[in-house]
């Protein structure tokens, strides 16, 4: 799989294609466009954490809809990344209830620790820092989303441990 060079075609594995058909079956005949959001999630997980144009075009073909219908949806929802992101995406909530419990300080701490601004990715491509709006964890603030999980009651020490955990995981995978 090499999207940048465009040499290989974007293609889901057989297993993922089965998943796609299973999702499409959830809706009435002819309403397969409803599968767009779930399939964009699937694609983002599968193709490197973001949605490049060839990926979106591929999905349009799968669902028999126009590419523009995919682009307009992908750009509307904040969970779809239209640019590459680091291997580990820290999405820290900054809305009222989290702010009342020190999210500003946590965001500052992560910025200093990783030496990046909000929206940036570290030079080694490991970490991206994003601020996000309320994630429904207001009682467990401050918090961030990391992949499929929430990390709650954040402190500087917890942030240190999370960064460490990600670095270790990345080292094992390499």
């Amino acid at each position: 799989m090499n999207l940048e060079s465009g040499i290989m075609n974007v293609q889901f594995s057989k297993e993922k294609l089965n998943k796609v058909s299973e999702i499409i079956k959830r809706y009435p005949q002819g309403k397969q466009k409803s599968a767009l959001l779930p399939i964009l999630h699937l694609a983002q997980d599968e193709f490197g954490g973001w949605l490049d144009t060839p990926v979106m075009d591929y999905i349009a073909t799968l669902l028999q809809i126009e590419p523009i219908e995919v682009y307009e949806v992908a750009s509307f929802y904040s969970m779809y990344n239209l640019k590459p992101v680091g291997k580990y995406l820290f999405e820290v909530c900054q809305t009222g209830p989290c702010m009342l419990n020190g999210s500003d300080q946590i965001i500052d701490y992560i910025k200093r620790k990783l030496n990046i601004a909000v929206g940036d990715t570290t030079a080694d491509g490991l970490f991206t820092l994003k601020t996000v709006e309320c994630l429904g964890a207001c009682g467990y603030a401050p918090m961030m989303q990391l992949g499929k999980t929430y990390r709650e009651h954040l402190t500087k020490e917890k942030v240190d441990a999370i960064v460490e955990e990600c670095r270790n995981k990345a080292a094992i995978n390499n």
Partner: protein
Amino acid sequence: MAKKLLLDKADVSGIRTYEVYRREGGYRSVEKALKMSTADIVEEVKKSGLRGRGGAGFPTGMKWSFLAKPEGIARYLVCNADESEPGTFKDRYLMEFIPHLLIEGMIVASFALGSNNSYIYIRGEYAWITDILETAIAEARQNGFLGKNILGSGFDCEMYVQRGAGAYICGEETALIESLEGKRGNPRIKPPFPAIKGLWDCPTVVNNVETLAAVVPIINEGGEEYAKIGVGKSTGTKLISACGNINKPGIFEIDMTISVEEFIFSDEYCGGIPNGKRLKACIPGGSSVPILPANLLLTTAKGEKRLMNYESLSDGGFATGSMMGSGGFIVLDEDQCVVRNTMTLARFYHHESCGQCSPCREGTGWMERILKKIENGKGEMKDIDLLWDIQRKIEGNTICPLGDAAAWPVAAAIRHFRDEFEWHVLNPEKCLTENFGLRHYADPIHVPVTA
């Protein structure tokens, strides 16, 4: 201890599994409902007085009876699990810890409404809860509570979970429907209402997670029994998610007769404010509802103890009251800055505006910028009036209620905390390092009866 109808079993070990849930009496309401007529089920829900728990408080039984039933056209039940209103995290708890309760309620509702394919639209970030729900659905199906000919009743029902992808606006029911159709979450113009023309243009009922879960005790115990709990038009129990500056943030199932004061200070609920700080303000029903200073929060303008229910929280209208909203209870202690808090909320609504209507798209951005300016010590007195003017021009001039939801918090903050805004303008340096503090916000007040 108040009676719990939804969370009484939430602590039972293994309750997330079908086996334990069933052993504890789960799915009895489905067995009972499938032997009833659909009209009788709707009648029980009407009798219960249940009001929608998603924020608007619309009577559920009435909503169900409005569903159009044209011959030969499918009808749909959609569960709204988008839960994105700041301060609100109750549905998450329910789905995460006792997922079968939602599924059970949805099966009964699907039967009553005639929905053979029902969907749970869940916010995309709750990714692990999607897995929990899908596992629970599969278990229910294996045990004959979903699928074809449920318990031999002839009723077929499938249930699916659809993940959103990060957009508060998809909690608005018509935006949710658009999103479920694979489109951008742009709210539709109403009418037509979803009850006539909803998902794929078919008649649709959209209900909140907690609303659908409440159908289970209503069917088990009867609508009349359910209505005996609570007071007035606030029947049954309500889940409150409490956060901010309190000792015990979390989810509480309350009987709507307790006072706001008891809720904040009793150890049974929020357990008071940490570090001996004093109460300054509170947003009692999710970020969209008006913020109240401590004095008006605890007692109404008439001098009565304010209670945790629909009527009492809104007593005094917007002049001196607030709303029950989604049950997201946000507490601010004396060290918090109302200007900063309001700024984060304005930023939230600006970020979440779908952009269809100009008053909302532009106005929310202006409000965010002006609030940032004031918060950063660069504000002028006329900015406060400008803010007031902008919020007033958004309210009521938009396609969906997000515009109002963005306007109200700003309006209430200026209405009750104007001196704090003015202090920022008059103390441009000091406001960067210090906060205005509690001042008079907890003092007993005498509001003219005409207010």
